[in-house]
């Protein structure tokens, strides 16, 4: 390594070209800043290259496969259905490469300088970038760290029998039997996708719940059962043996057990990429796991350095990183901005998909004295009958004292698209009447939202009266009864 003597001056340096980093770069450039983006691997980050895009590509394939089963009711007959994984991989790679080119073009069109290499902080205002045998030093006015996470290498992953939630989407054969460990959205998506593509799937989780609203979780568990995805709860993996197959030893409620499958997928712990960035050297405050502490604008404890996305504390999520990237870029450009994840939608691309905005009923009951909720089964909608996709429910949670909408949860077709209506409602501090008054297109899945709000007042049209009764209860004691009933 030759240390360069020339220090190059830069206005804004962004470390990492994932969704957070490239959004920050473009926004800062739009606001008149000279931006340099440093990327060590490929633009798009984990999201594009390994995470969101590959997994959603597979999920989309699974959805298409599922839809074929409904073709015959429309008179469309397909005699032989076959699935060629190599075609899927080829298309996926082409999509990734096209999206990557798109990001690069956007960055260049906005005048962003792209530097290939690995960055690390030398001092509070100097970054070194190493690329092969070349080494450059930049002095910056502002920096944004968007370097993301890496996986704990101690975790056993051979990418043959044992995969993590990213590498599983580069698998060259559909597993005959797949054990999915974990209750995160990644686990649920992998389980759902590979079941649909032909795997015999078992889901193994440490506790009993999946971290969702009770009603949604109940419906999800029903659907897992319907799809013959086995669920092992209260289990902890002890040992993994691989040879011709994978044998996983685990304890369930203190009892030793084992399961033999062709493949295992699980999520190694994520480690923030802070150590190699040298942020500790410049005195940046980190949490006990090494993630960077930031405020609601992305400011770190070091002046003029911001951090966004997976490398910071809190949930790991591309929508979060994108928003934080824009907030940091605006702050750098002198615009008062802020990040607030209170109404960040949480999305799971299972079949059918799940969306969750705001508080679950359980969280609402810890927060408000009087909570009302309603559940509306999507099977009651004309559009569901028409498309023959009757699974799922809409769950609404309100603070009964203020009539304030505090949670909107959905499992079923259209859940992802409809989640924006929920986010809008919460951001605008909507109350039940606001969502009951408005018009809804017919026939459409949107009507499920209206039925849900009407059910809060016992007035849903397509729901039996006795199923709405609990929604009328007001007193706390009655509400508790309802809770039992509902769960």
């Amino acid at each position, binding site marked *: 390594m030759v240390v360069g003597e020339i220090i190059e001056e830069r206005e804004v340096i962004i470390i990492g070209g994932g969704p957070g980093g490239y959004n920050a770069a473009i926004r800062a450039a739009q606001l008149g800043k000279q931006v340099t983006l440093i990327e060590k691997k490929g633009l798009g980050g984990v999201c594009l290259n390994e995470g969101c895009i590959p997994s959603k590509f597979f999920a989309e394939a699974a959805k298409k496969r599922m839809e074929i089963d409904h073709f015959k009711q429309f008179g469309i007959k397909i005699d032989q259905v076959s699935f060629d994984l190599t075609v899927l991989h080829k298309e996926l790679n082409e999509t990734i490469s096209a999206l990557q080119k798109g990001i690069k073009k956007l960055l260049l069109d906005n005048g962003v300088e792209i530097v290939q290499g690995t960055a690390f902080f030398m001092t509070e205002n100097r970054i070194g970038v190493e690329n092969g045998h070349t080494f450059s030093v930049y002095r910056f006015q502002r920096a944004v760290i968007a370097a993301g996470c890496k996986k704990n290498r101690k975790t056993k992953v051979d990418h043959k029998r044992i995969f993590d939630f990213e590498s599983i989407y580069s698998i060259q054969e559909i597993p005959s039997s797949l054990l999915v460990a974990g209750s*995160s959205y990644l686990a649920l998506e992998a389980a759902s996708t590979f079941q649909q593509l032909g795997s015999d799937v078992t889901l193994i989780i440490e506790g009993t719940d999946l971290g969702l609203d009770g009603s949604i979780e109940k419906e999800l568990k029903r659907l897992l059962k319907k799809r013959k995805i086995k669920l092992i709860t209260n289990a902890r993996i002890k040992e993994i043996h691989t040879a011709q197959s994978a044998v996983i030893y685990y304890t369930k409620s203190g009892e030793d057990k084992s399961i033999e499958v062709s493949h295992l997928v699980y999520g190694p712990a994520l480690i923030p990429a802070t150590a190699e960035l040298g942020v500790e050297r410049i005195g940046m405050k980190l949490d006990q796991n090494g993630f960077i502490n930031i*405020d609601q604008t992305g400011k770190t404890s070091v002046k003029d350095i911001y951090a966004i996305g997976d490398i910071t*504390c809190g949930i790991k999520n591309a929508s979060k990183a994108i928003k934080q990237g824009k907030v940091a870029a605006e702050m750098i450009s002198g615009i008062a901005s802020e990040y607030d*994840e209170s109404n960040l939608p949480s999305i799971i691309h299972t079949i059918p998909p799940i969306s969750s905005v705001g508080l679950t009923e359980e969280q609402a009951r810890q927060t408000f004295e009087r909570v009302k909720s309603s559940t509306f089964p999507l099977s009651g909608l004309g559009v569901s009958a028409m498309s023959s996709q009757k699974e799922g429910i809409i769950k609404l949670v309100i603070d009964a004292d203020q009539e304030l909408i505090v949670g909107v949860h959905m499992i079923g077709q259209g859940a992802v698209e409809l989640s924006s209506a929920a986010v809008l409602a919460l951001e605008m*501090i909507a*109350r039940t009447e606001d969502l009951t008054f408005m018009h809804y297109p017919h026939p459409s899945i949107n009507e499920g939202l209206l039925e849900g709000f009407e059910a809060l007042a016992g007035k849903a049209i397509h729901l039996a009266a006795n199923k709405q009764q609990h929604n009328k209860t007001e007193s706390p004691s009655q509400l508790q009864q309802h809770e039992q009933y509902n769960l």
Partner: protein
Amino acid sequence: MIEVKLHDIGEGMTQADINHYFVKPGDRVKADDPLVEVQTDKMTAEIPSPTAGTVKQIVAEIGATIAVGTTILLIDSEMEELTESKTKSRQDEKKPDAGLSTAKTENTFTYKRILASPYTRKLARDNGIQIESIKGTGPSNRIMDEDIYAAIKTTMPVQEEKPQEPAVKSTSISYKGIRKQIGRKMAESLMTIPHCTHFEEIDVTEMAAMREALKSKGTSLSANVFFIKALSICLQEFPIFNSSLNEKEEVITLHETIHIGMATNTDEGLIVPVLRNANKKSFKQLQEDCKKLTQKALSHSLSLEEIKGSTFTISNVGPLGGSIGATPIINPPEAGLMAFHKTKKRPMVNNRDEIVIRQMMNISFSYDHRIIDGGSAVAFTNRFAELIEEPAILLMELS
């Protein structure tokens, strides 16, 4: 367990006194319930609970002065037992924290939703208002734009910081009666009439000499009488200056009678007694009427008849000293107002190019530009100047 600490609530505050507690140990609290009131030298503030839970212990005593960062009380969070076993759950993730939150909220679900629309939140950010500290007055306690504006207002004086004494010492006087009448009339006049003011200087040496001569014979004639007499002649020659415009009716009324309003300064403010039929009165009569009206004005004994119906107004500010010019406001529905300023001895150049000492007076003449053009105004003041500068001509014109 959560430690609720005194955090920096802005204004550069570094310490605060504990005023009183809203809670006692064992009390159950909801997130954002007020826990304690603290006072700084600038403000009092309520510190809200960061979480739902039970008050465990009160650490800081009432009356104590504590520094930022000091623990005030301890709360057992409701969520703690629940969350310990499932730290992987998404909602349990620690929120971003850069020392801005009131307490450590590790592995605790806290509900920190701000009840304000994104637009309102931006309004707060752009004005440096911590929206977390605003209590919403809208439906469902929503924070409204108005709440932010109110907060901006209340924080402004604090920023300017004028301790103890108010910035402006003042006493109030009532704005009613004659003052309010004057004010309303002035505003109305200026709002409706496009004023144009014309300045001129007039040589009053000859007039002064004549007054001196008369005085020596035992007859006092005020300058006002000369001005009124000269104006009466001008107003007859230029009737547009003795008129009223009625825009609504689209008609200009030329008045045959000449009633001169005389702006008079009284201890209660401006009052304008009216000298009627000025053109039909002798110098002597004018002198008597002027004196009478002025006295009545000063003693507030004018009848209603004596203060209405003027067709042109004069304002003689000369005796008050001072000004060399003004932009008088017309007394509606009249078309003009002439102000006379202080007479001064000044070096002037005469016809023979000699510098001579003359007594000079400035006049300011405002007229309604809707109905009078600049040319007419110049002709009017020229004629007026001629009559004053050469009293012989004035005499010639007397009928």
